[in-house]
């Protein structure tokens, strides 16, 4: 986590100095997409060569669905409490 924080903070500082260079910022955003495409492709490659995962995919998918639904439900409940007490009328 420390490595993540250091790397992202360093990036954010550099980004802050580059914020008035729209061309560089645009290239950076394209690079992010490229990196994400590449990494997800590689993840697909790793998973495709793993027969155990392929076999378990329906189970993993069901678990994922449960996690997504409950994550949303919890967030929405907590969010509506915040909304009720702090945002309802004033904002």
């Amino acid at each position, binding site marked *: *986590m420390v490595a993540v924080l250091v790397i992202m903070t360093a990036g954010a500082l550099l980004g802050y100095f580059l914020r008035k260079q729209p061309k560089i910022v645009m290239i950076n955003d394209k690079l992010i997409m490229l990196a994400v495409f590449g*990494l997800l492709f590689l993840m*697909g490659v790793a998973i495709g060569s793993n027969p155990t995962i392929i076999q378990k995919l329906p189970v993993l998918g069901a678990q994922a669905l449960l*996690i997504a639904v409950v994550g949303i439900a919890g*967030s929405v409940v907590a*969010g509506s409490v915040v909304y009720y007490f702090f945002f309802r009328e004033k904002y």
Partner: protein
Amino acid sequence: MRATIYILLFFTLGLLLSWQGLLPGHLLKNDYSVYALYLLMFLVGISIGADSSAFKVIKQVKLKILLVPLATIVGTFLGMILIMPFLAEISFTDLQAIGAGYGYYSLSSIIIAEMRTETLAVIALIANVIREIITLILTPILAKKAGKLAPVNSAGATSMDTTLPVITRYVGKEYAIISVFHGTVLTILVPVIVSLFLEMA
């Protein structure tokens, strides 16, 4: 949404190619992903630093705006605790790490693939993609029944980009600012919280 489809296409393409044995063997042993991951985080950092507009709203909307991403974090955390008994083979901290993707499926699943197993990364990828899709579908109902913040909390980190157009349409422009702020804060926190949970175990 188009970016999501492209990303999933790349993932599926890699999956199908290697499943069918159509890729050279050396691609299959990828040990270079830590550096790619660090590079990606650096680039994400640059993108956040260059776009500081989201943080100017703190002055306009006051500090209570921080409660919105906090609600998403706490709500997701509690939700994961609730389903722990049903997912016995996933440890508490791993489950929290998956939840802490808050819809940011690419980065969170890449981190989990690096620090844990591919099985866990697949669950994280699917769970967080589903979070985005459910949000896109349920936003109209959520906005009506659960208050104007509900779609934002549901969207998680995606409330700044992929789900923003739909959210803005159903909760109004004044909440669009909150939505962008919420998504930006969570986008920054996803890699931090995910790796924090993974390092706890």
